[in-house]
């Protein structure tokens, strides 16, 4: 990939790290863990279940405690789109600037995004079972769009894993990511029209009664899962950077080794050349 030679991440002073951690990332990690704990307490203890009373019949209805799933499901979904958006931007960078930095970023965002996307599908499905009474709702636009997105990026990661010229693979992967992101509005629109033919699913959040604490918990969910995303992206980026550095390092070593190849006399024999005066 490297049009420009790879340079280390600039650092004025300090020593090389033996891990992908740094002081900043450790602090972020600790804060994230605290945040997750706080999110758990709020989601499971402090907030109320979604129970509503029907105005005429007086019967209880709502999502009850299943609503607690949304505090992790919805932020996961938003972070998935954020990661894939980052991947698309970085892919554009790959095609325009052709620098390893963009390439490593795109790969990191796609991989972390796909982990998140898988979790969105799983948590969505588990939430849908008690609330919609089905594991899978074909009529839900967001669910279907997310599934198609997941499959597209599964292909992206499969392409990334093929062994080939790393530069060609990174450019091709960039095209895949860009087409995926451009295709998403089409997927969304087609599923939306298609779904109208069957049943119309209410917006997931629209019928929730949003109280102050519920809203706060959801916002905290965005923040905490955003921190999880940041931490994972940071470390995945560094892993990718190290992979690249290891590759460059081994190539550099191979160049040195290649320069020392084939001693002169062996060469002369190979090309059928004889020095004057040398016995036959």
């Amino acid at each position: 990939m490297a049009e420009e030679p790879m340079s280390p991440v600039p650092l004025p002073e300090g020593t090389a790290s033996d891990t992908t951690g740094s002081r900043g990332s450790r602090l972020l990690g600790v804060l994230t863990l605290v945040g997750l704990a706080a999110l758990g307490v709020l989601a499971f203890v402090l907030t109320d279940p979604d129970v509503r009373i029907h105005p005429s019949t007086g019967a209880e209805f709502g999502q009850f405690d299943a609503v607690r799933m949304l505090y992790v499901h919805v932020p996961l979904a938003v972070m998935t789109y954020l990661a894939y958006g980052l991947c698309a931007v970085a892919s554009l960078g790959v095609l325009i600037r052709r620098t390893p930095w963009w390439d490593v970023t795109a790969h990191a965002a796609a991989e972390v995004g796909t982990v998140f996307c898988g979790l969105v599908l799983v948590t969505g499905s588990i939430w849908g079972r008690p609330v919609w009474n089905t594991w899978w709702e074909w009529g839900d636009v967001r669910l279907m769009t997310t599934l198609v997105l997941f499959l597209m990026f599964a292909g992206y990661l499969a392409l990334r894993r093929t062994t080939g010229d790393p530069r060609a693979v990174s450019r091709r992967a960039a095209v895949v990511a860009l087409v995926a992101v451009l295709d998403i509005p089409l997927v969304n629109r087609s599923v939306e029209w298609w779904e109208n033919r069957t049943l119309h699913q209410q917006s997931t959040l629209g019928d929730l009664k949003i109280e102050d604490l519920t809203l706060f918990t959801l916002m905290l969910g965005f923040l905490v899962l955003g921190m999880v995303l940041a931490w994972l992206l940071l470390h995945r980026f560094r892993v990718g950077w190290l992979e690249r550095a290891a590759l460059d390092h081994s190539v550099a070593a191979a160049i040195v080794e290649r320069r020392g190849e084939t001693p002169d006399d062996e060469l002369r024999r190979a090309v059928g050349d004889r020095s004057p005066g040398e016995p036959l």
Partner: protein
Amino acid sequence: MTHVGYLIAGWGITLGTLAVYALRLVRRGRDLSAQVPDAHRRWLEDQGSGDA
């Protein structure tokens, strides 16, 4: 509390997957660090501006 099983499954799978993925990243980073010369593994102390 209703739907306890669903909630445990959903949150458990989420947190478990994220934890396993994070651990794998840390381990991959540690393995790779051993193969790379120092100059290529200095991370910005001010995180965020150099990464992601």
